């Protein structure tokens, strides 16, 4: 059971994610960005709810819509903005774009590559290393509905299952893969049914309900930690903006968006916290304000940060 403090923490992390995202979208739309960025709008409950269910020693490989998970695990917003802006103090030292390459083993975060869903087998391997060393740790990663069509989805879950790896996979089913709706990606109603192909548990949860995501992940993590192998959790949600910053998503029916707008994970959670007497609106407003300031400071600092020196371009290809 989540304590009141924890529930407020969940709210804070979702709000911080949203604040970061709002500022990022505004900055890039305003022409002050560099390269493309992916909006997280609507996905906050998934990355926060799942990430919150992990212990610090667990390892996560977030994907391109899991900004919240990076923040939650302690990656400073300035490092992320600096990465997006190609600065020397970005997580990847100017090497990689937006959230790509935002790995930091000190925070038990594995960075991703564009090629989807390549974090999946890597996270399974991380989990296998825990079995190998008999450590009670868990590896967790994410996959989109679209990326679940890729062969690695199958190879990775099957491998995790035969190896009984302490592994949790969160499917972020946001109805679209870029412009392609679910119906052109698959011929099933719930991706979670695929768990049966690997002899592992699979559940469907409301991806806009942070506590539901948390609870399902917690169950899966405990199972994994106990040595009972991997699980799959499908979180249903909706991508509320375009695929990336340049994409207006005209191909998405407006009614669909309007419907999901009512289910905004942060707005609904705020209402619930107030209704259940966990927090009052002022308190929540204060949190939102704090988050806005935090990310604004981070952006300002990132924008003041230097670009990497061109002479360093060939440095750090190989580990010493």
């Amino acid at each position, binding site marked *: 059971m989540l304590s009141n403090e924890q529930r407020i923490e969940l709210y804070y992390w979702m709000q911080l994610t949203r604040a970061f995202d709002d500022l990022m979208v505004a900055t890039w739309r305003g022409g002050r960005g560099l*390269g493309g960025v992916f909006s997280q709008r609507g996905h906050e409950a998934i990355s926060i709810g799942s990430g919150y269910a992990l212990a610090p020693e667990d390892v996560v490989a977030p994907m391109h819509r899991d900004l919240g998970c990076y923040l939650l695990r302690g990656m400073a917003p300035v490092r992320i903005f600096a990465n997006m802006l190609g*600065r020397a103090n970005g997580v990847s030292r100017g*090497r990689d*774009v937006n959230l790509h390459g935002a790995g930091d083993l000190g925070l038990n975060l594995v960075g991703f590559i564009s*090629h989807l869903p390549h974090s999946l087998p890597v996270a399974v391997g991380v989990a296998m290393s825990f079995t190998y060393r008999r450590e009670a740790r868990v590896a967790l990663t994410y996959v989109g509905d679209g990326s679940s*069509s890729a062969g690695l989805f199958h190879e990775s879950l099957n491998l995790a299952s035969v190896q009984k790896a302490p592994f949790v996979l969160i499917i972020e089913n946001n109805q679209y893969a870029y*412009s392609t709706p679910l119906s052109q990606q698959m011929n099933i109603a719930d991706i979670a049914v695929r768990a049966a192909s690997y002899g592992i548990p699979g559940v469907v949860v409301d991806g806009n309900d942070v506590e539901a995501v948390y609870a399902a992940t917690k169950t899966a993590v405990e199972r994994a930690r106990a040595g009972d192998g991997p699980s799959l959790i499908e979180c249903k949600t909706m991508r509320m903006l375009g695929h990336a910053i340049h994409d207006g998503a005209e191909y998405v029916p407006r009614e669909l968006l309007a419907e999901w707008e009512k289910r905004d994970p942060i707005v609904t959670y705020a209402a619930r916290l107030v209704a259940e007497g966990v927090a009052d609106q002022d308190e929540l407003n204060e949190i939102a304000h704090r988050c806005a300031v935090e990310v604004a400071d981070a952006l300002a600092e990132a924008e003041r940060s230097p670009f990497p020196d*061109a002479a*360093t371009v060939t440095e750090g*290809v190989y580990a010493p």
Partner: protein
Amino acid sequence: MNAAVVSANYGFAEAERSAVEERTLTYIAAISEALREEMARDPNVLIMGEDVADPFGGAFKVTKGLSDEFGTRRVLNMPMAELGFIGAATGMALMGLRPVVEMQFADFISAGFDSIVQFAATNYYRWQGAVPWVIRAPSDGGLRSGPFHSQNPEAWFVHAPGLKVVAPATPADAKGLLIAAIRDNNPVIYFESKPLYRSLKGYVPPGEHVTPIGVAQTMRQGDDVTIITYGAQVHQALEAAQTLAVEGIECEVLDLRTLKPLDEEAILAAATKTGKVLIVHSANRLAGVGAEVAALIAERAFEWLDAPIARLGGLDVPIPFSPPLEDAYRPNAAKIARMARELARF
């Protein structure tokens, strides 16, 4: 500055000049035009890829309007599974269809690599089942897109037996080589240059315009230094040549256009003409296509050489995102001019 400059209208004779003005297309429009015309001409031609159907029309809008015009039976949105749908394209091609497969970015072709180099490429040699597909791969960088949206993976495919590989540098060739690739009875990988998509305009012959596969093109004539290149770097080379012409150094610029099979005759002729060769491409220099071109020249034109064979390519690092790093990584006109100047003085 007495060398003929043929770059401005990309080799079309002076007499055609008036038509030139009327038929100026962007590089990307030339690609779309080739697709549309070939689909209209041959019902076996179809398009497959992620997000290619309308209303979206592809990540770069190359296929925009095609499913509206020809129906979704001929413009197939694919699930995100390159290995699978490239294999499916091979099956369709074996049945005589001519799928044109769009990679969303050339970078993702590595996901379908296994099916391309092992199945499609070897099939005709093994049991004479022809595989007439085309894979369109939007390649190259300079656009601040980072290590996975800027790659130039052509060398892998040039090394693999059984494929053909083309890389147009002009709107005319973007159209002409795509038409040739579609009509070719073999698997052809077509590397289109993203940095040229909307920045480059040029004359494109209307209708039936086929650039033969395997034939390079002289883009500029000169007696001092030969620059051999392809894709977006052709334009950097031409810019460098212009700079150097002012200094009295005349560069021959050869656009390879086809990377497999290489136009060996044209390469050797260009190399022997000046005896000083600079090879340029955006891809990693190390074991890139330029290495093969250099080796070919060192083997077959050795006696005509007056200087070391120089190469300029991407660095042997993942393509970095941040502007100062990406600029340090990539060849450009200034770097080409510097190296060509050194060669001229050798």
